[in-house]
């Protein structure tokens, strides 16, 4: 054994269940990250959650991302959002397009949004990342490099035609085109 006897072990996770809304998502303002005074390109980030059978109408999506300069936790922009999905499995965050994050020892990371997903049926939350299609920095991103090439496209948001300020991202929990999830 290499472990210290008696060292605390993390408390187990349990599902968020179907009835979290009045406790966790009553504050709709948590869907608006791009408040007045936040610098950067305004975008709508539309996230749709699907399971094997279709839309997930009772998920909670948390996002966390850097500001337009790639900095976390700035006074003008705390970078945190939280929304429930609707009957179609969808939620829309009003935010800004994040900048490349360059403070990692691993090298510059392409602009991305961290996603933490909770739902009935998920005994633990799962993490994924949203990257932006067409970004020149994608090829250099050290985390994408760890993902099998055939699955990388599941991490890309795209822009629907006719909605220039909107990025769309689909989370497929299971089945064809299952989204890449990350273990921290």
């Amino acid at each position, binding site marked *: 054994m*290499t*472990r*210290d006897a008696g*060292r*605390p*072990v*993390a*408390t*187990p*996770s*349990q*599902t*968020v*269940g*179907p*009835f*979290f*809304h*009045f*406790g*966790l998502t*009553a504050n709709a303002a948590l869907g608006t990250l791009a408040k007045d005074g936040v610098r950067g390109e305004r975008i709508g980030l539309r996230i749709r959650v699907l*399971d*094997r*059978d279709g839309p*997930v109408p*009772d998920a909670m999506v*948390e996002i*966390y991302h850097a500001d337009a300069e790639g900095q*976390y*936790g700035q006074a003008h922009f*705390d970078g*945190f959002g939280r929304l429930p999905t609707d009957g179609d499995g969808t939620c829309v965050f009003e935010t800004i397009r994040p900048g490349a994050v360059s403070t*990692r*020892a*691993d090298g510059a990371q392409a602009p991305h949004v*961290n996603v*933490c997903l*909770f*739902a*009935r*049926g*998920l*005994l*633990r*939350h*799962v993490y994924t990342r949203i990257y932006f299609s067409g970004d020149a920095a994608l090829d250099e991103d*050290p*985390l994408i490099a*760890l993902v099998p090439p055939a*699955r990388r496209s599941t991490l890309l948001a795209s822009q629907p035609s006719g909605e220039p300020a909107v990025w769309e991202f689909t989370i497929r*929990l*299971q089945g064809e085109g*299952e*989204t*890449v*999830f*990350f*273990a*921290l």
Partner: protein
Amino acid sequence: MSTPQELAHSQPPLLYPPYKSTIPRAPAEPMIQVPRSFADLAAPLFGHLPIGGTDNDLTRQHPGEPLGERIVVAGRIADEDGRAVPDTLVELWQCNAAGRYFHARDDHPAPLDPNFGGAGRTLTDANGIYRFVTIKPGAYPWRNHHNAWRPAHIHFSLFGTSFQSRLVTQMYFPNDPLFPYDPILQSVPDEAARQRLVSQFDLALTEPEWALGYRFDIVLRGRHSTPFEGRV
């Protein structure tokens, strides 16, 4: 940091067929392990938002007193080094004493209580201590399988100090006869880990003539200072 083996033992798997909702939702592909240097993103600043005066007392959020058994729920939030996690947001939500949630989709035929919403939030103090006053929630049926009942529980949500330490869990009450029949609690493989989800009656937290006290300590992942590799 927990090893993958420890996590597999003390955390529930994503697919646990006795809990039927995991079957269509559990990701099946292998997860990509994020290198440690990526995992230490600073936590959201969420815990710095103002907390309302009655947010930690669920018995005082309405004009009248809620029905049910008044209780104190308190504990210490620590990291895997045992160090207190101060100033971190603790959110909880629960059903009322009759086992009914203040939620449109809960159609369990038990009464709502106009004096009980069931949601609270607070910050830990400098020693990582949180404290709520609430009502003991009831057990309630669900449709996972025939005659399925959830043991009484309170949902908790915590942020901690890093993206990795995010935790949503459920607190149970001692000696509940429903434990062996509840696939959500039983999804945790290790008996000792399951026991960490069960609060303990605590006479020191109990307020005379007022409320029983239950202690629920929580350990969040992360912020482990000393690499364990190489130590024997």
